[in-house]
């Protein structure tokens, strides 16, 4: 097919798919639910941020802890995340499930375009629906700026990218569920089983110490989104979400191609599952991270980072700590997470030590110890503070790091009141949504009589 004709057909189908989504009650119901949900989260977040800012504006040390990313953006988009997890699958499922349920799929299968084109068009249409759903959250960001709040573009653009990738993966799950299920209702159950399964996985990984479960939980979509919420652009997690979304959309295509036998569909789906496993394994090796947070929370100082990147002889860290211990969580957040991204060959393992007792003692003298081994040398420490641990690591590597002066993060406390904007989210935006729905519901049609020859 010639390229101009291909794009003409794709444009016609895209317009058709968008019209279909705009005609669906699921989309409008989601938008109506989203506006107050996002609004409530935003107003509450601003209120809490303002409370904390009251003392922070007087004390610079406290002000450094006031980050709009954690205080405003993540909680506001958290409501959006909830809607995308629980409501958006219904919108995306409709793009395929409705055709199957009404018999339109038999007509669509005879359209002069291939299944891949149809899926690309449907994905773009669902992407447009996602953009519509993101508007309340984006309006909250705009209001924050209007209130005088600070925004650091790389931080919030990275956060939006994380949510977009999450939405793409959810779209893949919804498409696949709709393609294999007989009805829209069954597809919804399958899709929610997937999305809620990620929550269960995260919960289980936080409470069960099995290493395979920990590794599996790292591949959960919520874990991937968390990286972006922490101000980190993580290529492995971005590729992971894109691979899950893309492969599941392709798997949906396997089930939608007319005239294919069931054994062949199952065989191709298994092949795609193997491909997905390979893609996820490859994504984990991508090793590209960018700390886009303004306070550089995900990185050590530049001079330390350069020195750590040169430690290529295999650093092993053994922790005699329970994963439930707050010290373990501290060292994981402040040191190990950063080292994993910067040290080329890092092994972290848990040493055998008795579990922590009721009052913090396990009865084992080694409990609380962290052992660092590198190039035949060994050091021990009980600290979780990077200011103590980094000199140990540089000592093991035999390097001397001269600290360079970097501007410290000032923090952006703001005493503001967003409650007046509640009207926008609880009344104005829902009214606008209803107005838009009404406009889309009965569009004016061209007059055939005038066009008759």
């Amino acid at each position: 097919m010639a390229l101009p004709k291909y794009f003409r057909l794709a444009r016609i189908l895209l317009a058709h798919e968008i019209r279909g989504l705009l005609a669906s009650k699921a989309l409008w119901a989601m938008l109506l639910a989203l506006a107050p949900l996002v609004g409530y989260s935003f107003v509450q977040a601003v209120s809490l941020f303002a409370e904390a800012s009251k003392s922070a504006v007087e004390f610079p040390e406290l002000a450094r802890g006031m980050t709009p990313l954690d205080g405003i953006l993540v909680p506001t988009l958290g409501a959006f995340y909830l809607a995308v997890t629980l409501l958006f699958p219904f919108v995306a499922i409709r793009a395929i499930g409705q055709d199957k349920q009404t018999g339109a799929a038999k007509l669509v299968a005879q359209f002069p375009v291939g299944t891949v084109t149809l899926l690309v068009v449907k994905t773009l249409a669902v992407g447009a629906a996602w953009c519509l759903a993101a508007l309340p959250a984006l309006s909250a960001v705009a209001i924050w700026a209007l209130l005088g709040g600070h925004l650091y573009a790389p931080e919030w653009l990275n956060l939006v990218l994380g949510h977009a990738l999450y939405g793409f993966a959810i779209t893949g799950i919804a498409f696949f569920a709709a393609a294999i299920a007989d009805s829209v209702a069954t597809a919804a159950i399958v899709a929610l089983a997937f999305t809620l399964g990620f929550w269960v996985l995260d919960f289980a990984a936080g409470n069960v110490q099995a290493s395979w479960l920990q590794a599996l939980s790292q591949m959960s979509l919520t874990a991937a989104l968390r990286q972006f919420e922490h101000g980190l652009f993580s290529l492995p997690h971005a590729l992971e979400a894109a691979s899950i979304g893309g492969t599941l959309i392709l798997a949906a295509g396997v089930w939608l191609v007319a005239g294919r036998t069931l054994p062949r569909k199952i065989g191709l789906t298994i092949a795609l599952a193997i491909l997905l496993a390979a893609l996820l394994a490859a994504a984990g090796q991508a090793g590209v991270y960018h700390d886009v947070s303004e306070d550089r929370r995900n990185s050590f100082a530049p001079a330390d980072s350069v020195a750590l990147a040169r430690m290529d002889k295999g650093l092993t860290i053994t922790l005699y700590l329970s994963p439930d211990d707050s010290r373990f969580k501290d060292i994981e957040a402040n040191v190990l997470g950063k080292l994993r991204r910067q040290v080329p060959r890092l092994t972290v393992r848990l040493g055998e030590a008795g579990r922590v007792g009721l009052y913090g003692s396990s009865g084992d003298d080694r409990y609380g110890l962290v052992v660092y081994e590198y190039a035949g040398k060994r050091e021990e420490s009980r600290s979780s503070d990077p200011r103590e641990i980094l000199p140990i690591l540089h000592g093991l590597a035999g390097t001397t790091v001269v600290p360079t002066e970097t501007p410290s993060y000032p923090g952006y406390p703001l005493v503001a009141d967003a409650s007046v904007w509640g009207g926008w989210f609880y009344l104005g935006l829902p009214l606008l949504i209803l107005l838009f729905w009404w406009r889309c519901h009965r569009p004016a049609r061209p007059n055939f009589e005038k066009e008759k020859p």
Partner: protein
Amino acid sequence: MIKAAALLEVRSFTKRYGDAEVLAGVDFDLRPGEILGIIGPNGAGKTTLMECLTGLLPADAGEVWVHGELLPPARRREAMFYLPDGIAPWSDQLVWRVTGLFRELHGFDSAREAVVVGRLELSPVLDKRVAELSKGYRRRLLLALALLTPQPILILDEPFDGFDLRQTLHVMDLLREVAIDRALILSIHQLKDAERICDRLLLLDGGRRLGFGTMGELASQAGAARADLEEVFLGLT
């Protein structure tokens, strides 16, 4: 591989669901400008035959030749368009949007769409949603969609279902006009309707071809030269 043949030749179509054979080596052909009726009792395999023919269902065996060229299932939509029975596609879209979609997709102009809409008397319901249409109007809309496709072979499953006698006769007239340019395969439940409109008939029962030919040929096959289709049907099934 080129064969001198009619517009469409179907050879040895076979389809099984588990142990049940729903099509057992069915053969037939279709000539240009012809209206071919597929008749048979419920469960005869009429719909399965049409869906296998168009590649929507995988057949276990069989060949489809169009203009003497063997067409694999993936390419059959180039030559034929199949309109299933009992569907209500894009039920929350407006009627004029749905007809407009087919017009645009197949590159027809608005005048062609207006003629089809006019002939099927769809004008009063253009601003309604598909879900709001009565059974008769929905059937007319589906016929309009079929007429807004360019394939040389049109396959319609129960095209007169939902119409009263006057409407049926009107649609028959329209289909005869369509058959000037395109060949039609119609699955028809009502034998009187089939007798009125079809040039040749394919009689199926239990997935087997019990008869194929003109009304006269079928009557001879049934051993009752002056019989009508109902008598032929009862005689052969």
